[in-house]
């Protein structure tokens, strides 16, 4: 990643002790924001937030309602739902990216946050890759082979495309497991359905 700033994690959790525990685990690696309820969570959510840890059972706005509103806003953050019980399959339809069942251990929390960051990094890379491939195709359709061979812009474009191919192949081990595959597809299909 070229951005040296720490990724931002927003914890939405009504029990202060629990929220503080997550904070202690995460603060060394991420910028952490804490919200005590759904309304506060939505207020502290902006484009800078990369991952939201969302408690499902909260007084006031429930985790489900908060999630719905997050998805209603045009934000690219990934949401991990924190549940008291192992959820049913129907929960997968709800539009979050991972779930964690309480009690959560430190390594588990780190793993989940890292995985979600990697996935969103993959989506960003794929988006950039597509934009450049479009540009390349436009040039190739509009210009002759000789013109392309002389073009600095075209050469740079090709170089950047090759770089992105390598980056994509290395992110998430190049879509090694099934859940990475499915979430990557969900993400690309999500825009226009």
């Amino acid at each position: 990643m070229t951005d040296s700033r720490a990724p931002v994690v927003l914890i939405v959790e009504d029990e202060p002790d629990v929220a503080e525990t997550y904070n202690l685990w995460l603060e060394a690696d991420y910028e952490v924001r804490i919200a005590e309820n759904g309304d506060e969570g939505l207020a502290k959510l902006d484009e800078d937030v990369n991952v939201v840890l969302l408690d499902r059972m909260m007084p006031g706005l429930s985790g489900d309602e908060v999630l719905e509103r997050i998805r209603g806003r045009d934000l690219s953050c990934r949401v991990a739902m924190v549940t008291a019980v192992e959820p049913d399959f129907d929960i997968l339809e709800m539009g979050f990216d991972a779930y964690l069942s309480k009690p959560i251990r430190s390594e588990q929390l780190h793993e989940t946050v890292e995985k979600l960051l990697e996935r969103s990094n993959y989506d960003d890379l794929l988006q950039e890759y597509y934009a450049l491939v479009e540009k390349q195709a436009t040039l190739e359709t509009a210009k002759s082979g000789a013109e392309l061979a002389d073009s600095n812009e075209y050469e740079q474009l090709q170089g950047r495309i090759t770089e992105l191919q390598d980056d994509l192949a290395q992110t998430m081990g190049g879509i090694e497991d099934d859940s990475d595959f499915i979430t990557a597809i969900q993400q690309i299909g999500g825009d226009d359905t």
Partner: protein
Amino acid sequence: MYDLSNVLETEAVSEIRPGTSVLIAGPAMTGKENLAMEILADGSRQGEGALVVTTGSDADTVVEDYQERVSGSNNIQFGVVDCRAEGSSGRGGNSDTPPGLYIHHVSSPGDLTGIGIGITKCLESLHGSGATEGRLALISLSTMLTYTDRETVFKFCHVLSSRLDAAGYIGVFTIDTGAHEEQTLQVLKQAFDGLIEVREGDAGREARVLGITDSPTDWASI
């Protein structure tokens, strides 16, 4: 390595690296689908797994056609993701599905998540049956493009190619060059490692291979 030279008689395709995805492009009625299915059948005859993602024919038709192609071979491991099964549910787990056959239904060619899940389940079954090598055919991208835009199809192809790479399988994807703008074809090509162009020549159907070897092969009849 995968050897496709039984189907396409050129040295260029005799050592295809696992994880390679190839676009089969040509005008309508030039045998793209037949070529893709023959590439799969050739693998099945050598004991590899095969998986078809179909947007045009229903699963039963695909299975029937495939059984004819591979008749005489034993232990065929064949998966079908039927994307045109409006409203019907999965049949894969039913007892009337013969062993070695895995069928999943998806509601529409635009339901990419459903297709992804179908592919995942078929790959699991094929792997579970011991098919560590295998070939996937997606027929066709042109139909998919009528349900969703080229950006989505491009990304889908890229992600699917990556998944095939991790699985060590190869993939062939068909597209009707007459049905899309030049720009669309140009963009989609980039999602693949190689390209097989087909055309109707004076002496019948011909094909050439681009991107697999340093220079394109000559047109040769198929």
